[in-house]
């Protein structure tokens, strides 16, 4: 307990800083939380324990404002929090360390922390100090490292640093030590105790029961979304808590172990691959073997390699004497090696297809009649499968999305069993499964083993391993650190081997601190170097070959074209930064040419007003895009493809034939040199710098890039989709409008056939600048250089007197080659996320 000398302080400290009162949360038919209450008292460490899927994560999401409860309220310092958004909770001083860190992979450590603090960029020293406080040497993390370059353990350190830098009143940690070894866990616990001593209320969630009980002052048990009990740690014994978590005593939770060694089904000999090294084991029929280890020790990579979902570098796998080729899931399936994923939504279920079609995946040949799939037969087979496993659903035409987690898991299990596996690999057999269905799954696995299948399960829960497995291999640093057999398969032994075996959890992943050079090379700006070199090489070559190339006339022409493309590409970059796309840029610029031929003419009129009118129309198009995408939930590519065609139609409607001269004064003004550069180009450069500053240094810009980098994370951080979408599409359209006005000065007459090609040119420039079309990564300087490269390339074809077809080929080849090169480079440097 903390040391409170003054009794009045002690009394004040016992008043909760934050409470959840009678919170209920349902997702469709599933009740995740039912009438749960929780008080957070300053200076106390409050542990919440429960099985996977007991509702712990939902509780955190409610407390941190990520999801809204159906009933109940959040009370902070005696006042009800009416609008509990993530930002609002952060402002109150509630910091959350998420199990899956809420960090945007394409942003740097400092930028992520700035997002989490709703503040400007923190000083590098401040961040480095926080990191060093959490892990020895700050786990070699530099404040300007990009998250995608870091390991899982480093992600967790950053996530914790982010929470601590908020200087929280209440600190909620969800499985913060998942990838940590013993030393790191002890250091973190010391830090948490000192935080508590300073009066912070701490909520700590973990399934590593031993750790939790070491740390906690108060323990709350939840099960199946219900509050089971809250008690001071000192007053309860560990086995009482275990019984409360499970809802029954251990021997009734698992079927009886009946190990009998049948023939060896799978022999793994010195298998090595990405994340695991030199693993040998034998899986006999009749036994359930478990894989344990703290997160990221190679156990999952090993299991997936056995399934053929990950390649191996050396070693062999034999199934009943037959050699299994590595890295080929289809061959493994043919050898009857079954696999059930730990992420059934992403990798298990076909959520929009009926249950029948989900079930018959491995046995399609059995439902054929006269070479064709027989729906009647499929229905009969699927119905039988569901009945045998008691999958509860409204019928075989229901979709998996309508099932509970337990029934979804049973669905996957019955699908694998239908293929009659010789070996079954199961990753987290009961993740997100209710207690009732759990027993059925354990029983099915036990029965399967008894019938002669070798079963290998990976579990993060040591209790489950104890209850289910006959033998457990504990992984550490990619190797088997301990093998436990028979009576040694006990929660305490497994947990001890997990954190002590082989030493620290992140030993295998420690790396040298990044240098300024390595950060630049992996940064967004780096591609400017090769792009620039190619550009100037082409210009130099053209100068040598053709003396008319480097003339003032040609260069000023090039400058005008560069200005137009720069506006287009920078505008598209704003949309790409949030992971969207705007195909309409080119036609919109074309529309501006047509409008200018009516509004900006030699007949006079107010120039400023005309320009404002054009830009307003462009902006309207952008806002229309954003509104349509947000309100109707349509893919941006469909919306902007539709406006691409429609805007072309409007231009054609206004100017069926080219007509209308643009004001000569306007044309002269745009081309007039200011500080030695044509006004148009100067404006484009100013706009580019403005966008660069927005994206790099402002909160809004960081939010936009975070959204493009990982929209789910951005949502958890409380970034609002409406704002970033409107800003991005608004800017894109506005800049396309500006590009169109410059294009009008270039063309001089109202023609509906201009502009369209700029969509492709803009995307080309964006892609060859090394920016990511999927969002999050871009450098405005590099995009400008790429625009120059595109225009120089197109311009040079006319000087070298080659076929106009080359313009098409060069652009087409450039976009594909650029995308290919950069996607390969990124693929190599990206660890995860």
């Amino acid at each position, binding site marked *: 307990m903390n040391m409170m000398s003054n009794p009045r302080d002690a009394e004040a400290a016992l008043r909760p800083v934050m409470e959840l009162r009678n919170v209920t949360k349902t997702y469709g038919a599933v009740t995740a939380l039912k009438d749960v209450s929780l008080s957070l008292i300053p200076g106390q460490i409050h542990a919440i324990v429960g099985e996977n899927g007991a509702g712990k994560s939902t509780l955190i999401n409610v407390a941190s404002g990520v999801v809204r409860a159906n009933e109940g309220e959040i009370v902070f310092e005696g006042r009800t929090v009416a609008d509990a958004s993530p930002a609002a909770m952060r402002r109150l001083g509630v910091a959350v360390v998420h199990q899956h860190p809420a960090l945007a992979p394409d942003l740097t450590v400092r930028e992520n922390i700035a997002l989490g603090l709703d503040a400007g960029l923190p000083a590098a020293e401040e961040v480095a100090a926080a990191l060093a406080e959490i892990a020895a040497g700050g786990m070699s993390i530099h404040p300007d490292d990009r998250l995608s370059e870091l390991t899982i353990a480093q992600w967790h350190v950053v996530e914790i640093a982010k929470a601590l830098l908020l200087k929280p009143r209440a600190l909620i940690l969800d499985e913060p030590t998942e990838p940590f070894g013993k030393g790191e866990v002890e250091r973190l616990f010391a830090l948490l105790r000192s935080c508590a001593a300073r009066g912070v209320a701490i909520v700590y969630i973990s399934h590593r029961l031993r750790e939790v009980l070491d740390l906690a002052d108060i323990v709350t048990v939840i099960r199946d979304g219900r509050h089971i009990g809250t008690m001071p740690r000192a007053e309860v014994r560990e086995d009482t808590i275990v019984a409360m978590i499970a809802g029954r005593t251990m021997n009734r939770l698992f079927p009886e172990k009946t190990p009998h060694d049948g023939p060896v089904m799978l022999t793994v000999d010195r298998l090595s691959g990405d994340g695991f090294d030199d693993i040998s084991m034998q899986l006999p029929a009749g036994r359930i073997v478990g894989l344990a280890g703290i997160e990221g020790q190679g156990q999952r990579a090993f299991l997936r390699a056995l399934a053929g*979902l990950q390649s191996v570098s050396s070693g062999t796998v034999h199934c009943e004497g037959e050699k299994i080729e590595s890295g080929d*899931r289809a061959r*493994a*399936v*043919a050898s009857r090696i079954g696999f059930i*994923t730990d992420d059934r939504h*992403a*990798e*298990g*279920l*076909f959520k*929009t*297809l*009926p249950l029948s079609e989900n079930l018959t*995946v*491995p046995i399609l*040949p059995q439902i*054929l009649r006269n070479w*064709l*799939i027989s729906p009647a037969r499929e229905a009969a087979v699927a119905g039988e499968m569901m009945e045998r496993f008691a999958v509860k659903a409204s*019928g075989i035409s229901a979709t998996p999305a309508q099932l509970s987690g337990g029934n979804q898991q049973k669905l996957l299990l019955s*699908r694998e069993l239908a293929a009659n596996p010789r070996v079954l690999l199961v990753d987290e057999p009961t993740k997100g499964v209710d207690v009732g269905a759990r027993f059925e799954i354990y029983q099915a696995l036990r029965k399967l083993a008894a019938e002669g299948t070798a079963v290998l399960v990976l579990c993060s829960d040591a209790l489950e391993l104890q209850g289910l497995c006959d033998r457990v291999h504990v992984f550490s640093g990619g190797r088997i650190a301990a093998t436990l057999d028979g009576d040694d398969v006990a929660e305490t032994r497994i947990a001890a081997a997990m954190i002590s075996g082989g030493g620290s959890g992140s030993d295998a992943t420690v790396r040298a601190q990044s240098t300024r050079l390595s950060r630049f090379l992996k940064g967004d700006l780096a591609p400017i170097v090769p792009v620039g070199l190619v550009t100037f090489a082409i210009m130099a070559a053209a100068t040598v070959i053709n003396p008319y190339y480097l003339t003032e006339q040609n260069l000023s022409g090039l400058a005008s074209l560069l200005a137009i493309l720069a506006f287009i590409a920078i505008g598209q970059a704003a949309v790409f930064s949030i992971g969207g*796309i705007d195909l309409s840029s080119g036609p919109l610029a074309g529309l501006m040419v047509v409008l200018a031929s009516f509004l900006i003419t030699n007949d006079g009129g107010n120039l400023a007003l005309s320009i404002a009118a054009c830009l307003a129309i462009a902006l309207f198009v952008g806002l229309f895009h954003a509104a*349509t995408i947000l309100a109707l939930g*349509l893919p941006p*590519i*469909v*919306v902007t*493809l*539709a*406006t691409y*065609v*429609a*805007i*072309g*139609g*409007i*231009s*054609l*409607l206004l100017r*069926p034939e080219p007509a209308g001269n643009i004001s000569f004064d306007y044309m002269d003004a745009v081309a007039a040199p200011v500080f030695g550069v044509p006004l148009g180009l100067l404006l484009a450069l100013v706009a580019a710098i403005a966008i660069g500053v927005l994206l790099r240094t402002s909160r809004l810009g960081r939010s936009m890039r975070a959204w493009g980098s990982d929209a789910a994370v951005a949502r958890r951080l409380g970034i609002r989709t409406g704002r970033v979408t409107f800003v991005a599409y608004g800017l894109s359209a506005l800049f396309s409008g500006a590009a169109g006005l410059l294009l009008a000065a270039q063309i001089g007459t109202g023609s*509906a056939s201009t502009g369209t090609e700029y969509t*492709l040119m803009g995307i080309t420039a964006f*892609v060859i600048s090394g920016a990511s*079309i*999927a969002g999050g990564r871009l450098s405005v300087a590099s995009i400008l250089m790429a625009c120059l490269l595109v225009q120089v390339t197109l311009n040079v074809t006319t000087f070298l007197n080659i*076929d106009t*077809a080359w*313009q*098409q*080929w060069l*652009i*087409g080849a450039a*976009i*594909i080659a650029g*995308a*290919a090169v950069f*996607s*390969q480079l990124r*693929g190599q440097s990206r660890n995860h996320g």
Partner: protein
Amino acid sequence: MNSLDGRAQAGGLSASPLSAITRWLASGDGLALGAVVVLILVSAVLAPSSLSYPALYAMLPFAAILGVAAIGQQLVIQQKGLDLSAGGIISLVCVLATYQLPDAAPLGTVLGRCLLAIVTAAAAGAINGLLIVRLRIAPLVTTIGMNAVLMGFVLWLSNGIPGNAPGLLDTFALGRTFGLPNTVLALILVTAVVAIVLNRTIVGRRFVLSGTNSAAARAAGIRTERYEIGSYVLAAVLYALAGILLAGLLKVPNLNVGQTYLLATVAAVVIGGSSLLGGRASPVATVIGAIFMTQLGQMLIAAGLERSAQYILQGVIVIVGASVHAILPRWMGR
């Protein structure tokens, strides 16, 4: 997005026949058919001449050609892709099928040219697929780049001058068999084959599974890469078929003729109600979507509207069509 197939929807939790009917109406086929009915009613009022027998007969071959190409686009969309090179492929195929061929070219020569066109298209599709799957380049970037490269070939081969389709091609595209235009027969054949393969064969089922959730399909041992690459190849072959028929029908195909098919193919799929997020889709619904888009164009022309108005309406229809399909099932599901 639940706008998948009527069977899955209708079978769901329906208790009464009425709810089964409303569910079918909300499904792709139902909505697309509804849109066509509405369009026919509107045509009857605004431009009755567009519903005359000769007008419909003139419209059908174009609808059939769009239908063939749109089924290709649908296959790509089913694999969560998008093919913006449809226009380039159709343009290039039109050049290949006509380039420097005498009007009286013999059957062997014409067939050889058609084969060359189809093989070229298939190669372009295969390159698309390989770049997208193997090098993990976004479909949009790959196909937009491929479209530019193909248009480069169109300019290079043709020198900017469109060719004349040989007489045999012309005759075939305009001809009739059993009273039906050959183009329509081609469409019926393509639709039937694609529908049967997708719904009733193992390879088709695996195609749908891998489009619905490629990670899950891979984990179940399906070689998803083959299906994804295959979708681009098959799509390209269908565009080539459409391009050959188009060259024959138009006799002198414009060099840019393919580009009008870019949005039109996507539009037909969208009107047909297929989810743009991949998975199951109905070729029949796509064909209905193609008929809708073509009849819309004819009606607008008959009503005295110009090409520009058609473009505008096409854009509007795509957004409205996609919204209806996105919103209605959500709304009915409540």
